């Protein structure tokens, strides 16, 4: 595998971590959302990551691949899983979304947990960005053989 494909692996992780940060931000923004298009309170979303072997573009490429290439896997967001924790019920009889007993359902979101998730995504993003820098350095070093 050439080093440019290695850049793509880091790129896939940058994308996945960005999606994770986006979903976490959406969770944080909707911490008090009681009404959605589907009715009911906002449902907290979890991002599910999965490793996926890096595809080979041709049969020839597959045959020439080394063991390391076959073990190279990039990361994908395989799905968004809604959190199944039941909503938090608060007694607010004057609220327009209150049920007949006067309770309002709020999404079960813990802002502290979301912040930790956001920090994790940001750190993982930084780490992958430095992996890109390192691979770029290697490519540049390889070019200097020519000069």
């Amino acid at each position, binding site marked *: 595998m050439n080093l440019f494909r290695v850049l793509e692996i880091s790129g896939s992780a940058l994308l996945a971590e960005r999606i994770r940060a986006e979903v976490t931000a959406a969770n944080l923004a909707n911490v008090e959302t009681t009404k959605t298009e589907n009715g009911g309170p906002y449902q907290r979303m979890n991002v599910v990551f999965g490793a996926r072997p890096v595809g080979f573009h041709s049969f020839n490429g597959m045959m020439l691949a080394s063991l390391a290439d076959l073990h*190279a896997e*990039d990361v994908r967001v395989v799905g968004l899983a809604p959190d199944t924790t039941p909503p938090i019920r608060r007694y607010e009889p004057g609220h327009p979304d209150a049920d007949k007993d006067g309770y309002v359902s709020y999404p079960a979101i813990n802002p502290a947990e979301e912040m930790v998730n956001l920090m994790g995504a940001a750190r993982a993003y930084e780490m992958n960005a430095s992996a890109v820098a390192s691979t770029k350095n290697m490519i540049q*070093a390889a070019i200097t053989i020519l000069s």
Partner: protein
Amino acid sequence: MSWLQTPNLIMLQRFLDVDAMRQTLVTTNVANVDTPGYHTRDVDFRGEMMRAMNGQADDGTSPFVMPVRGLLARPDGNNVNLERESMLLAEVQLQFKTATSILHTEFLQIHTAIHEGQ
């Protein structure tokens, strides 16, 4: 063996190859830092360089890839250790740079020989 295939050049070529493979796997490990159930993997760098030094690197086989032992797994089964991986990122990169500058010097020597030392 052609005149250009000196043991030094063959060795350096293999070194760069294995180093690039190692970079692939380190990058894969870093990319999958949040993938549940993912296990850290690495090439058998030392073993492969031993084989290269014994002149066995030319048989077209690829280095062994093995799961790294002794790392603490998180509850989701992932055992990527970011400290290990960032150290390796720096290490692999510097090794690669070292090998390329040695290779550059080797070619400069040939160049000098062609131009009769002028």
